[in-house]
């Protein structure tokens, strides 16, 4: 009988620590916002972890998927006077469908990791240019102000912090449930050796598409939520550098294929970002150096390191 004690303990610890975090921020609106953004990136990372960390689908389009959901939701609210509560699910659905379709086509065509990476990277660029080109809907590079468009819950403040924390915890619980189910076992087999999994009778197509759809739906949810929380959206907000690179670095720092990875990675990344951003133009260089160093020497992330050092079962 498998005991998930470690997982439960971790989930509770994470929830408690993150819930208590605002108390330690001294009432500063700036730090509250920073912490909220940290939660957002953690959630992105959980989603990407499911898609790439567990089924090796290199979706270099996290920003594009999030942006898709965000723009669709915002445009629906603005131009069709739909309520945000109604339009957010539409955004989520579109992201989920897109992600699922990408995955399905890629698996059916037998595309390797690198080609999935290229096709999704290209799609990110298409998305970016679509937003710029459809400026009568999207306002192009200038972007759209979303203050007041979304639900009051998501207006910047303590309420939105806890609402987003709720979403993050929900995604971590979803991750846990997914990984302990048959799907999770299938994921492990697929990540280990896809051909062997196929031969062993695992429906690789279904599980990969499942992972991609669930992950993309989550990305869509975060993307839409962030649109209303952030107060402003434009293509750069959901751009490759702002989202995909951040998520990659977060997971590299924390550890792919683990539950704590996105959380720890999110904390580290936020701290790093705070240190690096004020440096101005040089911050891109620092991120590059960080990425290269991480990939070369720290590929498995902090969780793996902690596991090795303490021998403990860290999820």
């Amino acid at each position, binding site marked *: 009988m498998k005991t998930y004690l470690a997982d439960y303990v971790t989930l509770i610890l994470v929830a408690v620590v993150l819930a208590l975090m605002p108390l330690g921020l001294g009432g500063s609106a700036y730090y509250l916002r920073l912490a909220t953004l940290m939660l957002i990136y953690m959630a992105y990372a959980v989603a990407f972890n499911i898609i790439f960390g567990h089924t090796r689908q290199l979706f270099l389009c996290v920003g594009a998927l999030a942006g898709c959901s965000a723009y669709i939701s915002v445009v629906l609210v603005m131009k069709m006077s739909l309520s945000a509560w109604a339009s957010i699910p539409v955004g989520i659905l579109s992201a989920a469908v897109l992600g699922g379709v990408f995955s399905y086509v890629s698996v059916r065509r037998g595309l390797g990791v690198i080609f999935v990476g290229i096709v999704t990277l290209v799609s990110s660029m298409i998305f970016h240019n679509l937003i710029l080109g459809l400026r009568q809907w999207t306002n192009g590079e200038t972007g759209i102000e979303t203050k007041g468009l979304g639900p009051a819950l998501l207006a910047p403040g303590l309420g939105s912090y806890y609402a987003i924390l709720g979403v993050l915890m929900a995604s971590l619980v979803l991750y846990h449930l997914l990984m302990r189910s048959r799907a999770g076992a299938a994921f492990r087999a697929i990540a280990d050796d896809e051909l062997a999994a196929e031969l062993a009778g695992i429906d690789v197509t279904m599980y990969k598409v499942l992972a991609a759809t669930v992950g993309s739906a989550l990305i869509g949810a975060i993307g839409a939520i962030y649109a209303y929380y952030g107060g402003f959206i434009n293509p750069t907000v959901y751009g490759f550098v702002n989202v995909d690179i951040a998520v990659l670095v977060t997971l590299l720092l924390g550890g792919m294929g683990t539950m704590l990875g996105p959380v720890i990675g999110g904390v580290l990344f936020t701290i790093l970002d705070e240190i690096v951003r004020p440096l101005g133009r040089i911050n891109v260089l620092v991120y*590059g150096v960080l990425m290269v160093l991480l990939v070369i020497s720290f590929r498995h992330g902090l969780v793996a390191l902690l596991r090795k050092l303490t021998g403990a079962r860290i999820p």
Partner: protein
Amino acid sequence: MIAILFDGIVQGLQLSLMAVGITLIFGLGGVLNLAHGQFAVVGGIAAALLIEAGVYAPLACALGMLSAGVLGLVVDRTLLVPAYRSAGEERLLLGLLITLGLSFVVNGYLDFKYADISLTLNLATPSFNVGGITIRTASAVAALIAIVAFVLLFAFLKGTLLGKVIRSIIQNEVGAGLCGINPGRIRTVIVIMSAMMAALGGITQGLFSSLGTEMGNELTSYALIVTVVGGVRSINGTLAAGVLLGIVNAFASYYVGAYLTLIILLGTAALTILLRPEGLFAHRT
């Protein structure tokens, strides 16, 4: 019409020149070089700095190419080593991530230190007349450079031992090893060549408009599109795809505008991967 077609072919040759480097490194080293555009920019900026310092322009350009080559050598021997030590999918992944990070490093550094530097090459006669059509000298020179570069490349690959060795590794790395060929050393040669060709592409860009530090990612994107459409392991394919996409780009830009054109090009790349991953023109290396 003819003017657009000619423009398209010239642009296409430029694109092919940029893209062939990616094809070479991918076909031979199994690494997708996302920092490719940065090699071009390094070469161009180095040339610009030298010209500013008073060096004779063509010499500055040659030295610019050389500095890109040196960068390629250093990258290959240091950063790419972990990628080369792995094989197959692991190598592809590592290579992609490492070169991605590298692109930020170079981009960030150049943007920081040389943000105001750009390479613009001016020619004595801006245009000349052939059979009633006005041709920009820049276009003619750029096309000539690209054609000469490709002719030299093909002659090298077909005629020299090293060229044949390179083709053999691209076609069958295992088979090459059985002949006693050490792929590692050859990879370094390829990375250097590829960086220099990228730099050449970047420098010829300076003939048309200017090459600035921020253009690296854009150049990489275009090169990636061409390589993918032509076939990531096929040099002939890359050349053909480049010219084709150059023509498409020229006509589309004229008729439907910048964003839609880019979407068309990107869409072509995406469709090629989905429908014919080995490339539209791939059947020979």
